[in-house]
């Protein structure tokens, strides 16, 4: 193995990986906007439709992004708030929160009435729980209904943890993921509420 061969190895690998990465970055740049739009469209919109009260604007366009904290590596975490308006008045604002479930993160969309400080409704956006078991957090309408119309000051934990939410039997982990996500979301909301300018 001569030095020349080693240099050739290093060179080839460097060039190939760099070119690959460059190509990918280009693809990423081209698709970024579209991906964001798709994510909102397919994940957020159905959930938004389900949980927001009547509105006369397009909440997807009327969205604001706010820095809501920092992650463990000091990078900014941003949360998108979707505003539902009626006659120009914000009647509800929705945002997403998540927590680890049984197999993978569980995301929930939370709608809050900013005037009454109540939680209007909750819907599961993403989940990859065990079919027939954990998926009941999304399929069984009775479960998210427990959150509706509760004041923000409620304890959204499971009953076993002293809260007000009854777990789905056999799917405690998934239920807990939802209730944790909601609790976290409410916390976040309380923290950034002043900055929302409502």
């Amino acid at each position: 193995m001569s030095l020349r061969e080693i240099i050739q190895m290093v060179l080839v690998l460097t060039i190939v990986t760099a070119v690959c990465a460059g190509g990918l970055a280009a693809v990423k740049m081209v698709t970024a906007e579209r991906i964001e739009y798709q994510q909102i469209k397919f994940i957020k919109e159905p959930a938004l439709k389900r949980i927001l009260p009547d509105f006369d604007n397009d909440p997807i366009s009327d969205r604001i992004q706010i820095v809501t904290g920092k992650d463990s590596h000091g990078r900014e975490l941003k949360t998108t708030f979707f505003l539902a308006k009626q006659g120009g008045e914000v009647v509800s604002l929705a945002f997403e929160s998540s927590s680890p479930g049984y197999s993978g993160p569980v995301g929930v969309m939370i709608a809050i009435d900013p005037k009454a400080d109540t939680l209007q409704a909750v819907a599961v956006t993403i989940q990859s729980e065990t079919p027939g078991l954990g998926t009941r957090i999304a399929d069984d309408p009775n479960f998210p209904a427990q959150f509706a119309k509760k004041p923000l000051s409620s304890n959204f934990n499971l009953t076993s943890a002293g809260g007000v939410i009854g777990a789905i039997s056999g799917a405690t982990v998934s239920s807990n993921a939802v209730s944790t996500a909601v609790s976290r979301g409410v916390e976040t909301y309380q923290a950034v509420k002043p900055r929302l300018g409502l």
Partner: protein
Amino acid sequence: MQEYLLMIVAAMFINNIVLIRFMGNCPVVGVTSSFESAVGMGAAVVFVATMAGTTCWIIQRTILDVLGIEYLQTLVFILVIAALVQFVEIVMQKVAPPLYRALGIFLPLITTNCMVFGVAVLNIKEDHSFMETLVFSLASAVGFGLVLVFMAGLRERMDATGRVPRPLKGVPITLITAGMMGLSFAGLLGMV
């Protein structure tokens, strides 16, 4: 301490990477025809998966996250794994030739073993700390190795005292048996 114990049990058995997450099936089918090769492959995977899991975690946290290029995760991880496997192969061939003869034939297979890559990705997805990454990778790989060894045991007995129909011999019956092993693990659903 307790959560690590729980994590070990969960990764080894309850959420066994092969039988519950269904990753790493090729070696379960391919290298379990003898007990020795199952043990060899298992050992090789334990080593590589642990190294790869921790290395990938470090790269993700110190480079990809910091620079905001998470979308390159797939490219970088697999590059790391491929280089790592080859590095191990080169070193082992020189330093421990007997070990190389025993494990060497399995090493190239590991690059394309989805279990190694899967564990690296799962560590990030499930937001493990470094220690958790180490423990999870090791325990998952050991769980994988155990399945290999159990399967080799079942196959040895089938070989000696069974009479599998000719068209189903080898890969087909091993697949079905793996399916049955997975089916039995349904009993652990909901633990943890």
